[in-house]
């Protein structure tokens, strides 16, 4: 593979504390050299990307995506999902196990990472916490970890039984894996299709109470506290309520290893965006009240949130063009995350660029222990995103690299256009 030099750009690498004009040389899939403008010593013969006026940053890392393979290739494949990731500036994605069959084995975990899948960026499987995600039998976490799993979860089918969740946390802690919980007490959300409140009442839809999320987060934190001697790591997926964030904040204050992620739609949209039954505004957890949305923003600003994750959940068009209550949950997110974060978190709400990028790369890498990723220092992986931080553009779902077009952000003006995405030294996306 030819070496690749990215020259003339502004290198923003929050993990390394760098925000300066730097050239960078990638070789053998790794970062070979970083130097001042025009000062690379070993760049001879390398292909050159001219990054003048652009930001050069560690490739983005999304720790919550659904790639739908194996089993639901009509929605998305690992190839199309990672193509969307590359277009969005992501070089690593962690794939949820709610596939068909459920990824609860080392075989499926390896299958997802095989070169035949045609992934454009690195896929880190997250394995099921229990056999078939049925919440009954714990999987072999050591074997799953050896096969490449970076965490365990029964995402979408949360572990309700206290005993089973305690066992999961303890078993995962023994092998050093993170337990990710989709916090939802499903006993409180039967038949519900949006947030419970005045809007759900008005629309005649059954609602999910915020307590369905927060009570589960509080229960999980109690279990982490009980097991604190064995240092379990609980990660709360797609946090959406003020009460859940408050619980995480409190857990951290007493020194528990509890982390959380927030999805762009939960810090931008509210239940009002369901409008008149827009199925592209239906996801789980649902869009919440304005107060909850504001709490997400505050939590990002004050540092309680560890990562922005998209919960990229592709569905075929025909699956979303049905009655709201019957439509599946989820929206795509890989191509819009950076542009939404720069437009709103950075430009509108004045969070420094380095901190925004950290939430999208360094912190998620640290959270899941992805070594050599989320930073650009000599020897780390050659995962790079190069983007124009000032370019405004309009997102068009029809032009998506994903198989799916189910997004509430179609037609939105975003800030920050990806110019190149480089995965382990290879250019995997270049904008026209």
């Amino acid at each position, binding site marked *: 593979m030819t070496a690749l030099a990215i020259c003339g750009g502004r290198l923003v690498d929050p993990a390394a504390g760098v925000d300066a004009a730097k050239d960078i040389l990638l070789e053998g899939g790794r970062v070979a050299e970083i130097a001042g403008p025009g000062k690379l010593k070993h760049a001879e013969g390398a292909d050159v990307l001219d990054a003048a006026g652009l930001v050069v940053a560690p490739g983005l890392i999304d720790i919550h995506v659904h790639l739908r393979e194996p089993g639901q290739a009509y929605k998305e494949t690992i190839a199309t999902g990672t193509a969307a990731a590359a277009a969005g500036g992501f070089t690593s994605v962690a794939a949820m196990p709610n596939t068909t069959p459920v990824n609860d084995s080392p075989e499926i975990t390896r299958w997802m990472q095989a070169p035949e899948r045609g992934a454009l960026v690195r896929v880190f499987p997250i394995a099921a916490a229990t056999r078939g995600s049925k919440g009954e039998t714990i999987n072999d976490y050591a074997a799953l970890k050896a096969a490449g799993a970076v965490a365990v979860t029964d995402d979408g089918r949360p572990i309700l039984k206290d005993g089973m969740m305690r066992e999961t946390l303890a078993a995962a802690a023994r092998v050093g894996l993170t337990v990710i919980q989709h916090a939802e007490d499903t006993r409180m959300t*039967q038949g519900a299709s949006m947030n419970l409140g*005045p809007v759900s009442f008005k629309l*005649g839809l059954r609602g999910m109470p915020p307590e369905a999320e927060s009570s589960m987060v509080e229960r999980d934190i109690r279990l982490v506290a009980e097991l604190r001697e064995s240092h379990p790591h609980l990660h709360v997926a797609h946090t959406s309520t003020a009460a859940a964030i408050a619980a995480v904040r409190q857990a951290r204050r007493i020194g528990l290893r509890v982390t959380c992620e927030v999805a762009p739609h939960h810090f931008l*949209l509210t239940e009002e965006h369901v*409008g008149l039954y827009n199925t592209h505004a239906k996801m789980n957890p649902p869009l919440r009240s304005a107060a909850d*949305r504001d709490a997400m923003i505050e939590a990002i600003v004050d540092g309680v949130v560890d990562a922005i994750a998209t919960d990229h959940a592709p569905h075929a068009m025909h699956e979303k063009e*049905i009655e*709201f209550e019957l439509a599946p949950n989820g929206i795509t997110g890989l191509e819009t995350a950076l542009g939404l974060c720069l437009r709103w978190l950075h430009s509108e709400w004045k969070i420094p660029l380095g901190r925004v990028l950290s939430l999208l790369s360094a912190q998620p890498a640290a959270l899941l222990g992805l070594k050599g990723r989320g930073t650009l220092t000599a020897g780390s992986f050659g995962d790079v995103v190069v983007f124009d931080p000032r370019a405004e553009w309009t997102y068009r779902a029809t032009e998506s690299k994903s198989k799916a077009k189910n997004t509430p952000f179609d037609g*939105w003006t975003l800030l920050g256009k990806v110019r190149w995405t480089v995965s382990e030294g290879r250019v995997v996306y270049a904008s026209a």
Partner: protein
Amino acid sequence: MKPAIPTTRRQRSTPPAPVSSFPYHAGSLLSVLDLTVNGVSQLLIRATELDNEDPILRDHILAKRRIALLFYESSTRTRTSFELACKALGADTTLVSSLSSSIEKGESLKDTGLTLRALGAEAIILRHNSSGAAWLLEESTRLPVINAGDGMHEHPTQALLDLRTILTHLRPGLVGVAPDTLAGVTVMITGDILHSRVARSNMQLLPRVGARVLLCGPKELLPEQAARSGPGIEIERDFDAALAQSQAVMMLRIQAERLAGLQLDLDEYKANYQLTGQRLATHAPTAVVLHPGPIIRGMEITAGVADGVQSAILEQVTNGLAIRMAVMERALAAETGAPTDRSSSVGWEHGGRA
């Protein structure tokens, strides 16, 4: 101890709420909110005119126009009323119900709507068990869609006919309405508000013509957020106290099919919320009693009250015909929307006299 909530928060600009493009067709009636007060007034006036019109002349108003009735739920009143209203104006109708069509084979609402349009339907009247279904159908077909009840959400023609009934009793001689027409009038709605599309449509419509809506029922069937779904809506949990304030009393059926596991003590419910002759005589001796039907005698209302002098239940049914004639005339008067193919009329039931 709960973590303290900061008292001062910076005001941040956030993405605006979405702008609705509904209704796509000016003839549609998806929600009572699609109508201005003036629009409501025109429909009421037209309903009276059509009611009084010579049947022979009326038969020409929608002569040979094609209207499909698409029913995913069983219905006696609404379906018959719409069908007779269409036929009274001379339109051809066809009925598609979920139990005797390809819907049983898994055909989607969108495809069913497009199929009806391809067969020449110029408007579709939809009754569906899922809230919001009428919006999906309108977006898919771009035809005038009349919402004849969507899940727990709305039933706009029911609210219009209820309004007509209330006017007849409380504002005799008045045909149209203005924002203050029912000023000083309290309309109470009692029972299963949570699952009721009739309640939701009335709650949105009646305050806009000046009425105060008083909701009554147990917490399980009447959540607090109901009072926050619009202006002019209040909750009074004490049935007798609510009755004493009301000039119109609307009773609702407990919707067993939508309770979804909710356990309700029916004896207790009857003791607290059943409209009996004695209660009515004591607290609201002159109020008009309404019920959208079907009534469950001996449950929410006694037979004596249902058949009594204060009951307007059958008048409501009759008023439905007039209202629906006006609604269908409006639906097909507006000429915006997708062009329809009118070359074939095979199989459409003729509305004219033989």
